[in-house]
């Protein structure tokens, strides 16, 4: 239980720090880089190394490559939904999560990762 409390606090602090950094930077497209900052990764990988060792964290970071490529495609889809379909930000970002999940799992399967 305490492990998940620590995860929650560490994740919350790291994500908030990157988000605030993104808030104060201009232009907006540059600030957007911080929307894909490795905030969750930093917190999770640090805890993974502490609990399971470097081999476990290495496997997680290999799978993260598929997640990152899926995130790039996800962001392009969100952009198109906002500009062309004129959806609002919340439905556009939530609907596109399906795209992220399908691409991420598909890439992991292609790479021969355990699913």
């Amino acid at each position, binding site marked *: 239980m305490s492990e998940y409390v620590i995860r*929650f606090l560490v994740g919350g602090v790291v994500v908030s720090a990157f988000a605030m950094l993104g808030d104060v930077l201009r232009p907006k497209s540059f600030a957007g*880089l911080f929307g894909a900052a490795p905030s*969750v990764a930093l917190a999770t990988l640090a805890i993974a190394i502490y609990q399971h060792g470097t081999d476990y964290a290495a496997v997680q970071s290999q799978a993260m490559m598929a997640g990152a490529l899926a995130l790039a495609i996800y962001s392009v889809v969100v952009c198109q939904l906002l500009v062309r379909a004129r959806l609002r930000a919340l439905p556009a970002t939530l609907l596109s999560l399906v795209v992220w999940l399908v691409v991420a799992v598909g890439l992991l399967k292609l790479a021969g990762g355990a699913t």
Partner: protein
Amino acid sequence: MTSVRISPSSLREGRWYEYVVRFALGGGATVFAGLVSSHFGASVGGLFLALPAIFCASATLIETHEIRRKRKAGLAGERRGQEAAALDAVGAALGALGLLAFAIVFALTVKASISGAFIGASLAWLAVSVAAWYVRRKTRWARRRAGTAERVGGSALPRSH
């Protein structure tokens, strides 16, 4: 070409509950990644280190702030809000390339040095993201200049009829 700058006044636009939501989402995403890893293994859990949960919140907040700003000026602001969120999405797409670089460097170096892996991967994220943003910016600027020159040159040409 607009240069990168810091605008601390942007922090005043945020409401206290927006920071609480982001903290909760960040904590929630980290807990979720841990739960997925423990139930389905490190490989599947690793995917969720690049989960766009935080992006959903930040894009929505950017849209809300833009609409609020336009409404204060007596305008509707919905379209500007969508455009601002779309710009944030473009940045996130470029940042995702940096995230890919982070994962590659981390996977290659973590067994040799833990602190080196964290530092090297973070620097790789920053370098690739900023480079991708800069290249896109330069390309767009050059294309826009070429378009303007073409239009000016085209109008200066005498018509054949």
